[in-house]
Structures are given as C-alpha cells and as structure tokens.
C-alpha cells in the first residue's frame, strides 16, 4: 500500500524556539486521523510542513514518495485555520479559479454544496459572515478528489450546529481512497469519525494509535485519554 504522507525525523525551529522535534509519521490511504493536542503543541506547524508551506529545519517530508512539489500539491487538499481567499472575489469566481487550477476539482459538487447552504455564488466573499466564508473554504477543499485532506482546526471557533454541518460535509464528500488528517483540540466532536489518533505534546508525538486499540487496551475513549495525557 502506498504511503500518502511520510514525515521522517522532522523538526521545526522558529529562531531559538523548537516547535516540532523528531516527528515520525506515516499515513496510508483510507484513514481518518485525528492530530490532537492542546494549543501550541505544533499541530498547525506539522500540517503546514506537510503541505510545503513551511520548510523543515531537519528531516524529510514526502507525499506519495516524493518531496512536496507542485504535482504533490495537486494531491493535497488543505484547509487552513484562517481565511486565505480574496475578499473582493465572488464565490463563483473562486469556484472557477479552483476549477482552473485543480484537475481533481468537481465544480458540480461545489455548486451543489453551496446550493444546499443557500449561498448565492454571485455574492462577494467580503459580504459573507465569517462562518459562511469558512464554509465556502471547506466546500472548495471537499470538492476536490484529493489523496490527502489536511484540515487545520475545521471546527474551531464555530457554533455546534455549524460543527455538525462541517463534520457531515467532510464525511460525505472526501475521497474514500485517500486519507484525512484533521487537527483539533475539540476531541469529543470528532472522536466518532476517527480511526487513528496522533497526540502531539510540546512538539513531540507522544501517542500514535488506532482508536480501536485505545478503546480495547486502555478501556477509555479518546477524549478521556486525551484529558489524562494533557492534564495540566
């Protein structure tokens, strides 16, 4: 089975501060993996490194066996933790742009999701609420038939109803032959969809296990184990 993402001995420093240290991760197709850890544990850094938005200080990152290059970026669908879309553009213009650049982007699927949410494609992004903009961004990401979905805090800072919609959208639209790496600290909301979890603590992987193993060996839910590992 082809490894989609492989991080070998990856470290990242910002100045003198070490944010990630000697991280080793392999992700195979067909998994939904939770990248869990408290704020500042290095989740966002690891995701950005995986999609080439950060350069590792040490170590090697490969997507389908190759360093992250333009062709690798076609295989990754990344949802950042902030708005990266141009506010002055209409939703339809952004959809067209994704269709132009990503051969695996399904425009019909995107419009279908927009219609379901009653978002007018003719509206400019700056006229939409923050929550709606986040949903547009999620729709764009999930309309791609990618090998790896890197979702950075998709349910952070949204109300419970929106959380349900977001998780449902992820589950019903991702390419099942690919994998999802979802970072969050809101474990209870995502636990049911995960089949593997990676705990990050102070830049180090402290646990990499299947959810089934946690439940059978530790006799705990992921949320309970998380609270135990990250107790203050």
């Amino acid at each position, binding site marked *: 089975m082809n490894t989609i993402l492989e991080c070998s001995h990856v470290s990242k420093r910002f*100045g003198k501060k070490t944010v990630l240290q000697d991280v080793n991760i392999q992700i195979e197709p067909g998994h939904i993996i939770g990248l869990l850890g408290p704020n500042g544990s290095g989740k966002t850094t690891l995701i950005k490194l995986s999609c*080439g*938005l950060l350069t590792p200080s040490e170590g090697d990152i490969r997507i389908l066996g190759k360093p992250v290059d*333009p062709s690798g*970026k076609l295989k990754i669908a*990344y949802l950042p933790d*902030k708005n990266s879309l141009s506010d002055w553009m209409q939703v339809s213009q952004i959809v067209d742009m994704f269709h132009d650049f990503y051969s695996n982007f399904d425009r019909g699927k995107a419009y279908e999701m927009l219609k379901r949410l009653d978002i007018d494609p003719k509206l400019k992004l700056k006229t939409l609420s923050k929550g709606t903009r986040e949903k547009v961004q999620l729709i764009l990401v999930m309309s791609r038939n990618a090998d790896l979905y890197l979702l950075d805090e998709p349910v952070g800072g949204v109300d419970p109803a929106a959380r349900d919609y977001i998780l449902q959208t992820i589950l019903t639209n991702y390419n099942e032959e690919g994998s999802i790496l979802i970072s969050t600290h809101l474990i209870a909301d995502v636990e049911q969809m995960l089949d593997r979890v990676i705990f990050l603590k102070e830049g180090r992987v402290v646990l990499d296990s299947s959810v089934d193993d946690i439940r059978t060996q530790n006799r705990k839910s992921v949320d309970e184990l998380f609270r135990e590992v990250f107790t203050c």
Partner: protein
Amino acid sequence: MLGKLLKKDITATGRFFVPMIIIYAIASVLGKILMELVLSMVHTGSNMYDIILLVTTVFATFFIIYIVACVILIKVFIVYDFYKTMAGDQAYLTHMLPVSANLLVLSKVLAAVVWQALTGLVVAVSVALFFAGHYDTAIPGFYEFVSSMEAIGMSFDIYCLNILINLVISAFITPLMFFAAIAIGHLFGKHRILGAIGSYVGIYIIIQIIGIIFLVMIGFRITRPEQSAFLVNSTFLFDAILNLIMIGAFYWVTQYIFSRKLNLD
C-alpha cells in the same frame, strides 16, 4: 498554467489599475477640452476667459498631482498585491496551487509589466492628444532638439532605441526589485516587513554605488565636449547591461526563497 496564473493576477491587479487608467483617460480628454477652450479665447477678449483660465490652471495642477500619484500608486499596487498573495494571508492559497514558485513569480512580473505598458500607452496617447492640432508649433521645437543632439555627435535613432530598450528593461526591474526585497524580508522571521524595507534600501544603495563608480570611471575618459555622445551612449549601455544582470539576480533570488525557504507562519 502560466496563462491561468496570468489571468488570476491580471484580474486581481486590474481592480486597482483599470479605474486608475480610466480616470487618467477621462482627465486627459477634459484637459484637452479646457486647453482648446483657453486657446480659442485668448484673443477674443471674452469675459469668461479669466474664469476658464483659472479652471484650467486648477485642473492642470490636480492633473499633474494625479500623474505623480499614479506613478507612486502603480508601485504601491504591485507591491501590495505581491506581498498579500505571496507572503500574506492569501499566500496559503497561492502556494498550495499546483504550480512552481518559478511560474508564480513569472506571472506576477508579467502582470506588473502588462499594467505598466498599458499605463505607458495611455500616457503616450494622452500626450499625442494634447499636441493634436498644434504639431506646427511643436515640430520646430522637436527639430531643434534633434539638431542639438546631432551637434554633439549623437544619432537620434540610436537615442530613441536606447530609451525604448531601457523603458522595457525598467518595466521588469521595477517590480522585480520590490519582489526580491519582499522575498529577502521573508527570511527575517517575525520582522519581515522591516526586513523587506531594509533589503530594498540596501539593494538601492548598492546599485547607486555601482552607478557612481561607473560614472567616475567613464568621466575620466571624457576630455572634450565632442565626447558627450560617447558618455550618453555608454551610460545607456551600462544601464542596460547592469539592469539585465539585476533582473536575472532578482528573479532567481525571489523564486529560490519562495521555493526553498518558504515559511508561512
């Protein structure tokens, strides 16, 4: 992919440049109408002459201010778009596109060149518009200029060619110098904007020093007034060669940093 990137970049920057160019074109036409009105009333003794002259003078003042503002705004818009999309919030989207940093930078440069060329074209048309109908008064001055150049041994055709070559080169070097400074600033961790400004100033000082060294060196070789043409042509040639080297260097530095040293934190 370059075509798609260009479409994206020209659309994004067009929202600044299109209104700017349209306003310039409208102002040029209005200016021409006012100028013709003033000229037609000079010897008529009309009571309205003073008012029209005052309106034209005020209009001309604002028009000149607008031209100066445009020259500055062109650079501001180019820098703003580049920073926002290559190193700011929108860089997350830009650098996730399945294209190389090489193409990203090339597209930004070409979009900047397209807008500078269009603006230059509109300015040229507006100058021609102002002279329209008055070539009889303008042409003698033009011939005077040409003959004064020939008197010092300079060919007008070569002079024009030099100007054209340097204009084309400067359309590339102006954005690239900013882009390289922003890219170098990207290496300065949390002080990226400060780093970019410092880099720009540093590059500018180095270029000035090289220019001064050249002028001093060539200046010693000029001993007779007839050699002025040699000085002018050498300066043009030196500028062109130096600028071409800098275009290559700035382009390489920019794409290298954004492909190998990218850190969007």
